């Protein structure tokens, strides 16, 4: 605990797979030596990795998408994906040899000393329990006072009725903190976090970073987090373990962006005065309120706004998955049907959406190749024997090895799934690509790679992009115009350079 007082001192430990807290005097809580995980006779999930974790330190696991961050966390927890097994190395957590631990002892360990918060903590909260019960359930001290204390500790208000709400009635950021409080309630010694800030806007991200720092310091907690957000790593990690990815496809050389000028307004996809109202019991919610949107061919348009401002809804209206309550859609000046069913084949091909949630964007029971082959056959009219070749090409474009074609989505990491989903949208060679938070699960390098790819297609094929993102620097770097949304209203739109100077914070 001696180092708890001066965490900044150990902050800049050099990166590397064998990074070791050599300056610590206390015994490490976790010792991982040469651990590797693979499916017997199958792919490698985690290349040999070593790691030690000490009390009161935050250890960040970074590395490109698919490098095994999630796998390592799950190994520490003793919960590997079905079929995978430890291939080599040792794993010691709190003095226990995790792989050899009896189920009951493992359960006790998780119950009292080891806590894990997954990548999507909102869905991990029982929707039928109240916040208060959720925290008391795992707490060593389930008293009212202690529960409220925990809520305050994670900076949640306790006097506006939040403790009596259910998880579905609180926002995503609040869910994340409730999950954290639930993990802390058992006073663990080690806290494992997977992507604690993915998909959150910058304000929330900073808040969580502060909180983690605070917890490590005051509680002497050892935190291990998988993270691809360099800013978060920079603000709060004591040490960084960089996982090296298994052999992967060539990274395409970055190309210089060559944004075209804003072309003629008459062509491209456009929405005029679109409104969407969601009926709710006892009232209605205006998800979109007379919003105008235009994306000319070859353009790159950013859509930016706080969580719940209607960004996703706008894209869904454009692609025809949600019929707008009022307003008109046009494509190249011609009216565009309000629903996908009402549209012709050509429209289907030309407008493609990459949906927000990478988890359910792919059919779990169909292989990557099946997912990619269908649009190729349906819209490309490709001969059967040409399909595998084209699939390999698409995978390569999103930096995935060609042999991933045979995998099922469950055998991919979060970022890999998102890239397959992008590849599927690209398969029809669309003229308009609507991207909903497509980089939220990707590490910076991969994200840049993907954005570069889109940029290239823009210039080569004159494809237009609409980009919804919480990452201001991406919007700033890759779009020419931007639409700002707030609570369903279009508050501003214009050149990115003027509306988003140097990619600064937009909201919050």
């Amino acid at each position, binding site marked *: 605990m001696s180092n708890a007082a001066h965490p900044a001192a150990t902050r800049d430990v050099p990166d590397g797979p064998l990074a070791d807290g050599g300056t610590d005097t206390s015994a490490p809580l976790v010792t991982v030596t040469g651990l*590797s995980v*693979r*499916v*017997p*006779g*199958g*792919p*490698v999930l985690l*290349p*040999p990795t070593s790691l030690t974790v000490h009390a009161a330190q935050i250890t960040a696991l970074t590395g490109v998408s698919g490098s095994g961050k999630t796998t390592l966390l799950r190994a520490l927890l*003793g*919960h590997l994906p*079905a*079929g995978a097994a430890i291939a080599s190395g040792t794993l010691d957590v709190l003095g226990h040899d995790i792989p050899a631990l009896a*189920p009951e002892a*493992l*359960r006790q360990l998780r119950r009292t000393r080891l806590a894990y918060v997954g990548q999507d903590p909102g869905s991990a909260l029982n929707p039928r329990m109240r916040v208060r019960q959720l925290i008391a359930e795992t707490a060593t001290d389930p008293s009212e006072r202690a529960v409220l204390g925990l809520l305050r500790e994670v900076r949640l208000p306790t006097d506006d009725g939040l403790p009596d709400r259910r998880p579905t009635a609180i926002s995503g950021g609040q869910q994340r903190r409730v999950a954290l409080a639930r993990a802390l309630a058992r006073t663990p010694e080690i806290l494992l976090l997977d992507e604690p800030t993915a998909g959150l806007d910058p304000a929330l991200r900073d808040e969580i970073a502060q909180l983690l720092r605070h917890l490590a310091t005051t509680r002497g907690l050892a935190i291990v987090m998988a993270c691809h957000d360099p800013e978060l790593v920079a603000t709060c990690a004591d040490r960084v373990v960089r996982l090296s990815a*298994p*052999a992967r496809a060539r990274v395409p050389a970055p190309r210089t962006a060559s944004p075209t000028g804003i072309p003629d307004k008459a062509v491209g996809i456009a929405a005029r005065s679109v409104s969407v109202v969601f009926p709710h019991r006892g009232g209605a919610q205006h998800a979109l309120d007379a919003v105008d949107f235009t994306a000319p061919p070859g353009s790159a348009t950013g859509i930016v706004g706080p969580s719940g401002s209607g960004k996703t809804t706008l894209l869904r209206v454009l*692609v*025809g*998955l949600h019929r707008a309550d009022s307003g008109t859609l046009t494509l190249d000046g011609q009216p565009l049907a309000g629903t*996908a*069913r009402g*549209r012709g*084949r050509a*429209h*289907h*091909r030309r*407008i*493609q*959406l990459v*949906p*927000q*949630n990478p*988890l*359910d*964007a*792919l*059919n*779990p*029971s*169909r292989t990557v190749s099946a*997912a990619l082959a*269908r*649009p190729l056959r*349906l*819209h490309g009219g490709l001969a059967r024997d040409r399909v595998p070749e084209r699939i390999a090409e698409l995978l390569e474009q999103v930096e995935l090895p060609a*042999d991933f074609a*045979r*995998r099922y989505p*469950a055998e991919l990491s979060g970022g890999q799934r998102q890239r397959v*989903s992008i590849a*599927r*949208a690209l398969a*029809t060679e669309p003229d308009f690509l609507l991207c909903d938070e497509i980089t939220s699960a990707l590490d910076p390098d991969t994200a840049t790679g993907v954005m570069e790819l889109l940029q290239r297609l823009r210039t080569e094929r004159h494809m237009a992009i609409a980009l919804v993102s919480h990452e201001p620097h991406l919007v700033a770097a890759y779009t020419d115009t931007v639409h700002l949304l707030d609570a369903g209203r279009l508050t501003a739109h214009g050149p990115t350079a003027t509306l988003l100077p140097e990619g600064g914070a937009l909201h919050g």
Partner: protein
Amino acid sequence: MSAPTSTSLTAGRRPGGARYRALRRVVPGLILVLLALIGPYLAAHPIDTPVTAPFAAAGDGAPLGGDQLGRDVMSRLLHGGTALIGSALLVAAVVTLLATLLGCFAVLHPTLGRAVERTADVLILLPPVLGIMLIALAWPGGGRWAVIGAAIVLGTPYAVRIVAGAAAPLANAGYVEAATARGESLPYIAARELLPNLRATVLALFGLRFVEAVYIISMAGFLQIGPQPPAADWALMIRENAPGILLNPWAVVAPSLAIAALAISVNLASASLAPRSARKAVTTS
């Protein structure tokens, strides 16, 4: 570190051992079905000729004793499965098929969904036994077909609900929306996007429907609807021979055991065909 060879990838996903285990679970069902099919050729006596005293205890010539007319229980047992298995399989297949079709379309098409829901709501109020009585009486001489019809009509609404219930969460999944946006037709989405994820549900449903069909058909037999004497039918045998159970228990016990064995083996088979991953159970690690 060496990259995995591509050949080992597929082998790793479905180890030969698992396939063998799955096969082993399907085998009892297959054997039973096979036995029911070739049973008539193994039978020592014709099904309608008395060979011993009515309800004679097991003994020479009749290894399982005689039935209510002194016919050989063993021979009748060997003959009696074909029709029951056939009808139950037919009912289970048709109900599962209908339910899968209607259930998938119902979640993709709200109007149809509401119609299906309402019909199910009404039919669920009708006790199955009363339903069989009405349908079978409305179609006298329908015999086995009337019972099959009744079982299908009565079983489908509930089955549709099960499929629709399982499919509903999938209907809004990203991949279904992606398919819609891609311009896929409803049948394609139902067949290629929803169905593969419902395999476990559908197979479990088939198993359950089969058992339910056996139940309904035997129930109909008990109510004197359906197969007619001198047909050798397991359900009919149970009913006909029940009065003599104290004289020759085998006449009742043997067909009962046959029905139970049939139900178990079919369920076993359908459960083992279901994909393991889709049906996760509460595991401790």
